[in-house]
């Protein structure tokens, strides 16, 4: 036993560039990849991680000085830069919890299916990073792997049950039967948007409510032509970098340079992430094939990424409008320390469930989206030290007093609440389990209630 412990502590002492490839190779062997393929997988993930660190270097050498000037000059508290979901996903997968997250979540999913606690088969393996993130921040807090994996499992369990709950609405809006959305961020917004929807309905006269039902006015995104052009990641990066440098009274030439560097950041980060994901591809494909084969039946929902909702016109339009809104929110919210950049390119993700819950209503989705982005900014700022710590565990040299990194997509309410509960130590973990059971129970009851209601209506007709 001691030898195993020693081997583990030796491996983790090697730093994440060596440790993560070894762990991923082990996981690859575990899901029965050919040994050569498993090693290639592990090394590719490691290379992805190194690429990620290299690209993040752009921030620490170029953006940090500008931000420091702004902090001194205007007293702005923007000490953190949002580098987008790719960084968060990459860093979450490259923690110890993250290396084992794919087989672990599959076990949790299979157990829940076996005990009929969910109908969703989550084949959206990439987005397991949300669960890995929750686990990894809890590990950072408690230094206890058991607690970390319990937290990841709790996030997964809540996600699967909420996915079951929203499945009929999602299927109706998209016209695709048999699917659900267990994506770790999207599910965390469901209770919030649900509550907001009930709140809005208090102000809408009953008569209108009936007329609007299902057929709310949609707003075409072609009205926001300008926004849809600058919503391209490289333009966004350029404009923000340029304006940031200008306000720090850089010369035009220097400001243009920073604009280009930020554009490069926006262009390169997804590519670095892609390398990492390529490494995970053989493992995730194996996992997907296993789940598909085992649960190939109509009674199960296929769990997909919330990206399938991004084509809905309301989502596109509100997503674009949220770009300037998020920037303004970042300036005025006192708790926020994050300069939004990376995930501005994916604002639509944050409201994907709002469009569904608000039946495509533009105005409701817009208000909910604004509230959600405010919450996300605060939580993303809170998690900045943790994400920066994950980045530091690599060999990346982060200079003292440099900017911290975070991602808006790491501003996950479930991760935040889990982290706060786990502050209580052992008691916290017990509480977390109790809360999770409670949430799963409440949603199960809501699903049951809906089903009996449907049957009763059927009898009446």
């Amino acid at each position, binding site marked *: 036993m001691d030898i195993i412990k020693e081997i583990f502590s030796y491996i983790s002492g090697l730093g994440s560039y060596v440790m993560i490839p070894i762990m991923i190779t082990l996981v690859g062997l575990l899901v029965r990849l050919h040994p050569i393929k498993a090693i290639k997988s592990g090394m590719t993930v490691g290379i992805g991680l190194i690429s990620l660190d290299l690209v993040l270097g752009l921030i620490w050498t170029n953006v940090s000085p500008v931000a420091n000037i702004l902090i001194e000059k205007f007293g702005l508290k923007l000490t953190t830069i949002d580098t987008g979901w790719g960084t968060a996903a990459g860093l979450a997968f490259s923690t110890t919890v993250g290396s084992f997250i794919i087989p672990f979540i599959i076990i949790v999913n299979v157990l829940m299916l076996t005990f009929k606690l969910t109908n969703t088969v989550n084949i959206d393996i990439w987005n397991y990073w949300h669960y890995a993130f929750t686990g990894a921040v809890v590990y950072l807090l408690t230094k206890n792997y058991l607690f970390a994996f319990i937290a990841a499992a709790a996030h997964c369990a809540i996600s699967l049950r909420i996915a079951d709950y929203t499945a009929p609405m999602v299927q109706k809006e998209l016209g695709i039967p048999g699917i659900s959305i267990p994506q770790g961020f999207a599910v965390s917004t469901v209770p919030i948007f649900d509550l907001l929807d009930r709140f809005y309905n208090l102000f809408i006269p009953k008569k209108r409510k009936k007329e609007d039902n299902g057929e709310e006015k949609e707003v075409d995104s072609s009205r926001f032509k300008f926004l849809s052009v600058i919503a391209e990641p490289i333009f966004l990066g350029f404009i923000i970098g340029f304006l940031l440098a200008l306000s720090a009274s850089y010369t035009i030439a220097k400001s243009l340079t920073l604009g280009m560097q930020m554009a490069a950041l926006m262009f390169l980060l997804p590519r670095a992430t892609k390398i990492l994901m390529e490494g995970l591809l053989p493992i995730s494909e194996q996992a997907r094939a296993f789940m598909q084969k085992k649960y190939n039946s109509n009674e199960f929902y296929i769990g*997909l990424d919330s*990206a399938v909702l991004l084509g809905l016109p309301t989502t596109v339009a509100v997503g674009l409008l949220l770009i300037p809104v998020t920037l303004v929110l970042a300036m005025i919210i006192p708790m926020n320390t994050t300069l939004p950049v990376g995930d501005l390119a994916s604002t639509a993700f944050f409201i994907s469930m709002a469009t569904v819950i608000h039946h495509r209503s533009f105005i409701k989705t817009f208000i909910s989206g604004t509230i959600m982005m405010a919450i996300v900014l605060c939580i993303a700022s809170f998690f900045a030290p943790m994400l920066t710590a994950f980045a530091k565990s690599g060999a990346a040299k982060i200079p003292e007093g440099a900017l911290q990194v975070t991602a808006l997509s790491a501003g996950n309410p479930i991760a935040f609440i889990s982290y706060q509960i786990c502050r209580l130590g052992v008691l916290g973990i017990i509480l977390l389990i109790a809360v999770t059971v409670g949430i799963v129970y409440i949603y199960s009851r809501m699903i049951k209630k809906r089903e009996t209601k449907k049957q009763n209506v059927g009898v009446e007709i």
Partner: protein
Amino acid sequence: MKTIIVACGAGVATSTIISSNVDKLLDEKKIKHRIIQCSIREVKSYEDEGDIIVSSMPLNGGYKIPTILGLPFITGIGVDELKSKILSYLV
């Protein structure tokens, strides 16, 4: 030479799986092609170069070229129909 634009939410993960499936299909049918893999927000800037768009999400119109839902490559349901649909636009 046919150009296929493959798009998903971020142009990173799901579109990689769809791309490799499209690639395999067109190689089998000996159709010369190139694939542009991108995020949904980048599709507009590529559509002039492409023949069809294969996306992971249903797209509600507004594009100059045909759009096809590539989700069956992910779910494994309706793959044959999807393949013949893609080929019908390219042959």
